[in-house]
Each structure stands twice: as C-alpha cells, then as structure tokens.
C-alpha cells in the first residue's frame, strides 16, 4: 500500500493506483474529460491537473501513479487557473449552441464551465468548420463539437477492436476521422455505439433520440438486451413510457458497458405498430389473434402427429444458452436430430 496526502488528508491506496483513484477514495472531486476507468489513461484533456509538491509542472491526476509520501493539492489557485484556462481554450473552439444541442444537461464541458463560471471564451479566432457526417443510420458525427479527448478512439481500439477511427492531421487541424476522412459508413465501423456513449460532449449524437426529450426528462431503466444470449446490460432512457434511446450499462458484469449495433440502435421494433404482441393462427387464409393457450395447444397437436425424423427444430440466437440447450434436448427426446440455429446461417 502507498500512503499519500491529498489536500491535507492522508489516504492509503494500492501501489499502481493513480492520483485520481486516490482522490476518489477521499471523495475529492477532480474534473476529467478524457478519463474512463475501462481505458488506459492518456492524460490528454488536462482538466485533471493537480499540483504535486516538488514537481516542476502540474500533473495529470488520471495518469500519474501515486508515490509514497506524495503531497497533492487539488484546490489551489494554480490548479484552478489551469483548469479555467483549459475551459477557455476548449470553448474558443466549440459551438455555443447548447439551446438545441442534444447533449445539453448531460455534457461534461457544460458542467465544468458551469462549475468554473465560464460562459464564453476570451479568445477569439478561428473555429473548426467541418461538415456533419450523417452517413450512417445510427448517429451523427459533428466534429465541430469534438474536444479531441480521444475517448471514442480509445474505446474503438481498446474495447471494440474495430479501429475504425483515429486522430488525423496535427496541431489545430487535428481531427478524429475514419481512414482518409471517408464517411463512417465506408469504414470498418461496426456501429456498436460505444463511442457515442463515452463522448463527453455533443459530438456524437444518436439519431433515434433527437428532440425526443431532454436528459432530465428521461428516466433511466436498467435491463438486459433481448437480442441474444450474451446478456449485455442496457440502460434504457424512457419518456412517457416510450424508450427514447439506449446506452450500454457500465455496471453490467456481463458487458461493462459494451454493446453491439443491435442492442444499441435496434430498438425501433419496441414501439413499432407492426410488432407482434399476441400469437396469431392462420384460419381460412387469414391470421387471427388467439390466446397463448390456444397457440400452444395447436403446436402440441402438431408435434404429436409427427414421428422421429419427420420433425425438425430451428431455434434462435435471441434465446439464452440454457433455453437453446433445453430446446435441442426436447427435440431429441422426440426422436429427431434435425436441429439447427439461426446463428449458424
């Protein structure tokens, strides 16, 4: 264990912990924009700068490992000045369209500007001016709002593995793009949507939720994704009993916030008028709504008529492993090995 002092309070943390983790243990708040505990720290946004005694420059709390006897200050004039300057610089190159921005109320840049009382930047000059990338059906990429924290790039490389986006150009022209700045839809992107979930600002906006409700109007409901047996945790954002958008649930032990395109963006079936909600039986060429009991009776009667190899079963990836196991066991007891599964197609 390593013992250190933050703002005059002693704390003991495991060796290899960062200053940020140690501060967290003491409930000392340090603002971050590029930090995510699931990703390797990069120290890019410089919001978490703290003063470490005997260090020459300010240190990034998210990436600096603790050292025995370290004395850290998070609440000094110098620290606040650096953070304010950072916000000033970010804001000088960020649209102030919070009125219509989907991220309004759930934006970390906005939160910190509020915290430090910064309403506009004192620096006037060139601003980014990029066209929106609306090439895919799932989300809009607005690189004018991007603060280049790199979370989307890292989640794409470190967790998903698609590596569809990365930094291009240098200096002020640095931009997160797919290869050759092509539209995202032409990239290896698999549209898992994790980049959208980690974006701290409004640079990545899911199309499904646009103008469907402000963050504070939405109720978050934790659930498990219905699309397959993996059991990824999802956060559903609900307004007026309608699911407006979905995010991966970082607290889910099965998925830790990871999603795939279906779980993240495939929710339009939920409130679709043609969604099947009751069993139907075809009678005289017409589909008729029936009770579950009638439907199951019909299936049972048909199963009774078939013998052994006459019967075949086809199951679905939307069932769990356990359900799929039971399904094949059930068919085998009926004397058939004609069993298949949609994931094999």
């Amino acid at each position, binding site marked *: 264990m390593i013992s250190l002092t933050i703002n005059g309070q002693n704390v003991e943390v495991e060796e290899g912990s960062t200053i940020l983790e140690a501060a967290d243990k003491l409930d000392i708040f340090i603002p971050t924009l590029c930090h995510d505990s699931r990703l390797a720290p990069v120290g890019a946004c410089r919001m978490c700068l703290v003063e470490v005694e005997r260090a020459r420059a300010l240190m990034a709390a998210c990436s600096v490992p603790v050292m025995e006897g370290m004395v850290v200050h998070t609440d000094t004039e110098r620290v606040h000045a650096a953070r304010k300057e950072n916000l000033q610089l*970010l804001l000088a190159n960020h649209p102030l369209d919070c009125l219509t921005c989907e991220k309004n109320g759930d934006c970390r840049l906005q939160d910190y500007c509020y915290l430090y009382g910064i309403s506009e930047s004192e620096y006037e000059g060139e601003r980014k001016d990029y066209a929106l990338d609306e090439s895919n059906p799932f989300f809009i990429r607005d690189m004018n709002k991007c603060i280049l924290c790199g979370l989307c790039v890292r989640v794409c490389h470190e967790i998903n593995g698609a590596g569809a986006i990365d930094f291009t150009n240098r200096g002020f022209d640095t931009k997160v793009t797919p290869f050759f700045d092509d539209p995202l839809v032409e990239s290896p992107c698999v549209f898992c949507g994790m980049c959208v979930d980690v974006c701290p600002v409004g640079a990545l906006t899911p199309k499904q939720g646009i103008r469907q409700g402000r963050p504070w109007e939405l109720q978050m409901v934790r659930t498990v994704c219905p699309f397959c047996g993996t059991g990824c945790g999802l956060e559903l954002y609900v307004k007026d009993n309608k699911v407006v958008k979905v995010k991966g649930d970082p607290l889910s032990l099965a998925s830790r916030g990871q999603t795939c395109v279906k779980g993240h963006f495939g929710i339009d079936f939920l409130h679709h008028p043609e969604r099947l909600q009751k069993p139907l039986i075809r009678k005289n060429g017409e589909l008729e709504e029936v009770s579950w009991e009638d439907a199951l009776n019909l299936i049972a009667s048909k199963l009774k008529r078939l013998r052994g190899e006459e019967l075949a079963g086809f199951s679905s990836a939307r069932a769990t492993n356990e359900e799929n196991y039971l399904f094949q066991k059930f068919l085998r007891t009926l004397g058939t090995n004609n069993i298949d599964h949609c994931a094999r197609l």
Partner: protein
Amino acid sequence: MYERQILICAGTGCISSGSLQVHEALRKELQKHQMEDKVRIILSGCHGFCEKGPIFIVYPEDIFYCEVQAEDIPELVEEYLVKGNVVERLLYKDPVTEDAVTSHQEIPFYSKQKRLALRNCGVIDPENIDEYIIRGGYQGLERALRMESLDIINMIKSSGLRGRGGAGFPTGMKWEFAYRNESDKKYVVCNADEGDPGAFMDRSVLEGDPHAVLEGIIIAGLAIGSDEAYLYVRAEYPLAIRRLRTAIAQAQEYGLIGENILGSGFGFKINIKEGAGAFVCGEETALLASIEGERGMPRPRPPFPAVKGLWGEPTCINNVETLANVSLIMRKGTDWYSAIGTEGSKGTKIFALTGKVNNTGLCEVPMGITLREIIFDIGGGIRDGKKFKAVQIGGPSGGCLPESHLDQPVDYDSLTSAGAMMGSGGMVVMDEDTCMVDLARYFLSFTQSESCGKCTPCREGTKRMLEILERITKGQGVAEDIPRLQKLALAVKDGSLCGLGQTAPNPVLTTLRYFQDEYEAHIFDRRCPAGQCQELLTYYIDPELCTGCRACTRVCPTGAITGEKKEPHVIDEEKCINCGSCAERCKFDAIKVK
C-alpha cells in the same frame, strides 16, 4: 605511396553545393595528369562550415580550399598539385580583414572549437570502418566489455555527461534507472529524429562518423543489460541512413555487432527505424509510439521509458551527440572528459550557428564558453556591420536572449535560468532588422503546426497565442494582448503533456521579457521598430531623391501617389495599402519606410 591526400566533403550540405561533381572532375583530371597513384581522394563527412562548401582540403600541407566547383578543378590540379602554387582565389577570406587564410586551423570559425563529438567528421571516410578504428574507434567498447554494468554506469555518471537532446538529464543516471528495472528484455533507443529547423549536428555526426554512434549504442546496451537497439532516424536523412546501414554491416563483419561480440559472450542487434517526419517524434515517448507503429503522440510520464518504454519494456533513450560522446569517454576516461566544461555541464556542445552572422555552420565548443565568443569570434560577428539584437537558442522552443546576456556562459543551467534552453543546440543570431514580435510569431507558427494535437493547452493554446501575435504584427493588437499572452503562455507551459507544449511558449515569454518595448510599439504606436511588419510600415518619398519620373504613380494600385512631372511626389498615407510596389519600382531609392 601517396604523396598527397585530398579530403572532399561529402556531407549533405556540400553534396548539394556540388561536391560529388568536384570529386568526379578531380578523378578525371588526375587521370589526365597520370597522378592517380600520387593523390588519394577521400570523401569525408561534414566539416561544419557548409556555407563555404564544397570544402576541399589538401594534406599534408593542410590547405583549406572552399566553395570549390567542378570548373575549378583543372586549375587546382595544374596550378597547385602540379606546380605547387596556392590558388588564392579559392582560399577562405577573413570577412573583416579580407586576408586569405591557408590552413583551416587559422580560420577563426575553427580555432575556438573543441571537436569531440565531431572528432572524426571531415577527417575520416565514414564508409570505411578501418579509418574509424585507426583513430581509436571501438577501443571504448573493448574496454567496456571487460567491465561490469555498474562500473560502466558509474564511469558515465562521474564523467558528468548530460543528454545532448535538449533537457540535459544526466546520462549515467538514466542508464542506472534502466539497469535497475529488471526485465528479460530491454531496449536501447538512439534518438536521431533531429527536427529543429536549422539544426543538423546529429545528421553530420551520423553522416561523418556513424561508428562513433554505433559504439555508443552498444556500450549503452552493455551498461543497462539490453541486447537490442533501435536507431530512429528521420527519413529526410537518406545519406545518414545509407551510411549507417553500411556501418552496421561493416561492424557486423568485424564481429562488433551481432552474437558474441569480440568473444565476450555479449550479443547485440541494432535496427534502423525511419521516422516519417513529425517534429513531435523527437519527444521520447512519441518516438517510442512511432517505433511501435502507432501515431507519433506523446504518452504521459511517469511511467518513464526506463521503467516502461518500447513495447512496455525498460528502455534507455539517448541522443546521437550524447552517444558519440559516450564512446569517447569510455576510451579516454572520466578525468579527461570532466576536465572540459563547467561545474554542472561537462564536455562540449555542438551548435548550429545561423542567422545574421558572418560565419554560419556547425561549431563544437566547450561548455562555459560565452555567447559573445561563439557569435563574434567563431561566427565572425554580425553581417554587414549591423548591430546585434538577440540570439535565439535551443530551436523553435528556445528563448531569445538580448545583448545583456552575451557574456553569459553557455551551459544547461544558466541558459535555462535566462529563459532559453540548450535544446538541440540551434543558435539563430538576429540583428537590428529583426522584429522580435514577428520572430515569436514565426516560431509559434512552427510549434502550432507541429503540435500533435493530443493535449488541450498545446493544441488550442499555441493556436490562440499565434493568433494574438498575428494580430499584433498586423497592427491590430490591443493593450490587453500583452497580459493575455503572458497568461496563456504560462498556462501552456505549465499544463501541457510533453516537452513540445511545455517549451513552445519560450519564444513568446523571452521576447516579452527582454523586448516588451517592441510589443508596445506595435500595439500602442502601430509601429514596427525593426521595419519588418508590412502592415505597420509607412511609406514616404524623400523629396531630395525623387526626380518626379512618375514610375511609382503607374504601379500604385490605389492611386495614393501624386505630384507634378519632374517635381517630388508625395504618398497619401490614408490611401496607401503598404504593398511596397512603388519602392520596388523606384530607380532612385527615393521611397523609404518609417
């Protein structure tokens, strides 16, 4: 038996001014005179005085001919090699006395130098390992192979050698960190990504004496317990890369690289990695990312490379000039080395002297020499008898020091306390015609476009500083710009992730510190004291010189010039847009600026 040896410089500088054509012409001319057996021609490395290239030295007399072209060769051979008459017109002329100097030892540019890292540059054929060995090469390695790792480290530590790449970290201490971090795999990395505009000492060492660097790398490997090195050279140095490849092949053949070096049981491999031209890749963690095939972006330190470096393994990164010193220290010993230099900075440093001095080029000087000696003795003073204004030291992130600092000794600590830095050793001299605000703007435009874009203060902060400086040089500055620049510069320095951002504000901070009056003149008087900022100039016509020829009125795009024919004309300041066309057109130098 050869009667004479002729050294023709084949460094990049002299090659581009025609030294290979000189070589070819000399070869043919000697053939014509049937003198091939009497004169040996050596294509050497860089002499540092590239401005006077191609350089052509004849031994044993030590006659230094400069700016020799292929057309001069028939005369040189006929007059000098055959008849023995020195060809005076090709000798170096002192810029002040205009006297011709025959031996390069007598040229002030060389006489104050102490060439250690450059010991073999311009002296040996860099493509011949034997020439390096004859001059004591690989003796340091041979000695190190008989020593324990810690003894090698202690030797480098007590020599006082500090990193020549910029920050001046003690080399021995760096080695010890890498040595003490236990791992099955460790790397040595040689940083040859020389990116500062105008600095070319590393290129010259690599081109002129590649084995000195290879020997240093192998010794570093022995010291930290590594069996593999990467030499990261920028792809813009094709000649250096070619000579390094030749040198590595020759050293392998001699059993100096590879398995079981000189029968010691120690094996070592050296790989070359060509950089793709990003300035930031000279920063050690960005350089490591680049070797790994990633985008060259710096990584947070700690963990330092000595703990977690290339592919996560303990890595020792040293600069070219540092390693060229290592091989010499191992051969000649600690006491010899630490006798040179000052208390805190031992040995020598190579500077790339350029700007408004009479002699430009590479000079290696003992630490502790004063700026005045470098600029006025080695550099021969300011060109055209103008007045010295400032010297910018340490590359684009260095600082500008004014005349009051000329007698300051050049060493790591005094440069840093003055607001400049040793950096890679760039030294740009400025005269009274240089605008210091414009200079700061120029350097900021470089660091901004080379910022990797990763961290906020550097990416956004250098851009805003640049914009403020641009406004000031255009005469649009406001009073708040000075405190705003100051605040922003300190924030970028204090908050940036890597050395690039932490030092990029230096040109702004030092010009604000030493030349604030120039900023004020731009902002409050709308005047550029050095007469450089186009938008701030006022053109006027000297009535004494104007003949009323009307040529200026015809080129003026705004009709700002009026006057009767054959009478002095006048410029209407309100209408003038400072395009300067009239001044270019005037045959009588009657149009002036103030």
